[in-house]
């Protein structure tokens, strides 16, 4: 295992991009295969003689780590292939630095998943945060990007601080920070809850949970696209991994139901918030960033539901919702990376991030357009693709929630599942907007005519991720056994052979309740399409007439400006969810000589939470600065008084 990690890091010193990125892609493939093999193996542990004296690094490869390594390998394979072609235009020095940071980032993510003691975990966690910070600020000459990077770094450090405290509580006063010792430390329920809350805060900061999500929509537009893809596709999952590791592994057996309810509620809020903001964005990457927030919300809902089931020892149902969560994280790694890479290609070809200046790119960039279409359908949760399966599994788990022996929870569950369905449906809406405006219709700018399709490496990367989406969508019976290893490890039960006894049908719990066959579904879709095509040909006598759609017989040609804009498309959502947003509008009336329409949508939480926080910190540090007189005598007096106080204290 170490060899793999070392190889990823070692490659970075050489700088010939054509060699480095494909070989890192190969390494990712190797990682993928190894982790796939490791799933069926017993737990491997390894003690590295590195680190501080007396504090060696412990590594451990169990089923949970193997699953997330699989995710890392699969997603980074596509992203690395893509990067091989993407950074041609970059300066040599920047590119070399980028190479180093990119591989450091990958290696530290792998180490986070492999770490078996809190010390190595935090070291890897911080190096992940730092390397991704430098990746985000690759174009550090632009002030906005520096600002975005700063917000990211700040929140990452807040989160790391919470994690540090969390591990401090988990060790329960033994001073041994190996995970094996943390598992055996018996905490009182108060401390366990504190640790859980700190973990939720710390990992939530990384994942973009509701009050801590502000860095996501800032950092993603700032970062180069492959970096956004990795950050959104994989790095957010490290937070999910950490949360699973701490709640289900390290705090094994002491989860009160309130934790589950809290996670569920926070997840729902995050999902709804993310999707509502995604709907009104007009910057492609910002839109995708908010959509990542929504998906993290869904994952947290899954974790919360798993916790609830697990608390009441409904282990099969816990396994169901955990499998849905894991499936969704795998899916999200694939389709979100795919979408970010696709957006990267569009950005590269047109230089535009604003939805309002794109359009009609399906004619210019068919490869990108078709692969992104697969990603879009997948993230929208449409049936033959992978997004549907995980969301369907999660909803199946929700349908079993009346089995919970807690009346209030059972009463709340339908509301929760309705909110989840709302978020999922709105996600589909967002994706229609995204795809329709970027790729369909007519180009809104003349320069879009020069857009070129992606190169061979980009196509390979996009193709791999799209193929992954298709595979995960069509062959859930092959994926569920992989998840079973993890669910058996974490909640002690698995969907097992019931789910996959028939390779054609996916049956989560009972065949009487629900089952789903993606291949069958695909077959129906294909045959309906073929039938329609055939019927049109036959019954309509095969007469075809080409004309511009939607021109209502108006003889003039349709202009691009007549198309629906991104802002226009999102107006209904904006109206419905108006209290959610902070909107600044400038709408002059018809008589104004030179009317200028402007609409700016801001995050409410900036105003409600962050601004007061910033002001408070400012005042506090202002007060502390007053201590710094610059007078040596006073400084001496400070240390003198401290000395006296300490002397009195030790007496």
């Amino acid at each position, binding site marked *: 295992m170490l060899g793999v990690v070392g190889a990823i890091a070692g490659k970075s010193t050489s700088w010939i991009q054509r060699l480095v990125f494909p070989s890192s892609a190969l390494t990712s493939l190797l990682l993928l295969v190894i982790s796939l093999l490791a799933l069926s193996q017993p737990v491997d542990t390894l003690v590295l003689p590195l680190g501080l004296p007396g504090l060696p690094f412990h590594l451990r490869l169990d089923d949970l780590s193997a699953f997330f390594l699989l995710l890392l390998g699969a997603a980074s394979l596509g992203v690395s292939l893509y990067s091989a072609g993407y950074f041609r235009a970059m300066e040599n020095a920047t590119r070399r630095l980028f190479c180093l940071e990119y591989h450091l980032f990958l290696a530290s993510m792998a180490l986070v998943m492999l770490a078996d003691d809190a010390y190595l975990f935090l070291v890897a966690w911080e190096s992940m945060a730092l390397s991704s910070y430098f990746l985000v600020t690759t174009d550090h000459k632009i002030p906005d990007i520096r600002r975005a990077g700063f917000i990211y770094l700040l929140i990452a450090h807040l989160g790391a601080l919470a994690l540090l405290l969390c591990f401090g509580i988990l060790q329960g006063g033994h001073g041994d920070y190996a995970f094996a010792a943390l598992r055996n430390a018996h905490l009182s329920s108060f401390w366990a809850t504190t640790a859980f809350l700190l973990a939720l805060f710390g990992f939530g900061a990384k994942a973009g949970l509701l009050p801590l999500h502000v860095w996501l929509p800032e950092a993603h537009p700032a970062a180069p696209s492959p970096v956004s893809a990795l950050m959104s596709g994989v790095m957010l999952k490290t937070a999910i991994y950490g949360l699973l590791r701490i709640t289900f592994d390290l705090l094994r057996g002491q989860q009160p139901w309130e934790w589950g309810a809290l996670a569920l509620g926070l997840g729902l809020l995050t999902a709804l918030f993310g999707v509502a903001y995604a709907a009104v964005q007009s910057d492609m990457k910002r839109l995708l960033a908010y959509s990542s927030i929504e998906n993290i919300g869904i994952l947290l809902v899954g974790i919360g539901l798993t916790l609830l089931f697990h608390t009441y020892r409904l282990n099969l149902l816990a396994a169901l919702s955990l499998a849905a969560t894991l499936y969704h994280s795998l899916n999200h790694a694939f389709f979100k990376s795919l979408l970010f890479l696709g957006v990267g290609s569009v950005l590269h070809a047109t230089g535009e991030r604003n939805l309002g200046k794109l359009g009609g790119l399906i004619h210019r960039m068919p490869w990108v357009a078709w692969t992104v279409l697969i990603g879009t359908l997948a993230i929208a949760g449409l049936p033959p693709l992978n997004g549907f399966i995980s969301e369907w599994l999660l909803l199946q788990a929700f349908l079993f929630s009346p089995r919970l022996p807690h009346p209030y929870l059972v009463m709340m569950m339908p509301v929760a599942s309705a909110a989840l369905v709302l978020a999922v449906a709105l996600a589909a809406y967002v994706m229609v907007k995204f795809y329709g405006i970027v790729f369909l219709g007519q180009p809104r700018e003349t320069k879009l005519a020069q857009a070129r399709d992606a190169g061979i490496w980009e196509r390979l990367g996009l193709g791999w991720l799209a193929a992954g989406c298709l595979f995960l969508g069509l062959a859930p019976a092959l994926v569920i056994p992989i998840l079973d290893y993890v669910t058996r490890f974490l909640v002690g039960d698995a969907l097992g052979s019931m789910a996959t006894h028939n390779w054609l049908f996916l049956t989560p719990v009972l065949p009487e309740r629900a089952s789903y066959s993606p291949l069958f579904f695909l077959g129906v879709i294909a045959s309906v399409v073929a039938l329609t095509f055939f019927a049109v040909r036959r019954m309509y006598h095969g007469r075809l007439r080409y004309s511009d759609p939607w021109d209502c017989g108006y003889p003039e040609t349709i202009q691009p400006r007549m198309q629906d804009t991104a802002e226009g498309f999102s107006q209904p959502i904006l109206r419905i969810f108006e209290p959610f947003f902070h909107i600044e509008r400038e709408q002059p009336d018809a008589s104004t000589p030179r009317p200028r329409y402007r609409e700016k949508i801001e995050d409410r939480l900036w105003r409600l939470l962050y601004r007061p926080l910033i002001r408070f910190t400012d005042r506090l540090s202002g007060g502390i600065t007053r201590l*710094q007189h610059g007078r*040596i*005598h006073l400084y001496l007096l400070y240390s*003198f008084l401290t000395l006296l106080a300490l002397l009195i204290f030790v007496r």
Partner: protein
Amino acid sequence: MASPFLGDLINLLAALLLLIAFAMLAQRRVLSLINLFAWQGLILAASTAVMAYSSHQHHLYYSALLTVLLKVLFLPWLLHRLIRQLNVKWDVETLINIPTTMLTGLGLVVFAFNLATPISQLATTVAKSTLGIALASVLLSFLMMITRRKAIPQVIGFLAMENGLFLAATSATYGMPMVVELGIALDVLVGAVILGIFFFQIREAFDSLDLKHMEQLREK
């Protein structure tokens, strides 16, 4: 092993040291301050030598010799030379008037003795009662550093503090290991030389050795 006479002698010397510390606190002239510092070093060396004789710790002779060379001869010479070169023979200016300083110093001595009593009962050396004196002279020198306005008295305060520390070390534990002692001696030497250079720089920058000008350096 140690005769009561030697113990008394050490106590006497320590008391003299404390007296000099007070004298330094009260002294208004820089030149006298330097002389007092040299006297303090001499007394320290003497007490170390007596200690070495009474306890047959030979390495203490070396540290006594080192003290004489460094603190009685070299550093005062260096400080005298500095004052000649900088041409600053003014009176010492204090931030707080001298009677108040003396009273505060008195309080500190009481505090130091109060603090040192339980510790010195644990110590096994002949001169265990001097621990309180040593601590008191450290605190007095610190007080001197705080109350002086100009740079040179502050440096003398710093050096005197090291004297007190040295006395504490010898009285409580028969001195530190030779390596540590040599290291500290070297540190003090280098510190004094560097501070000497700083005096010139400070005067160059502010035309004065008054430390209140350093306030300009803080962040606005």
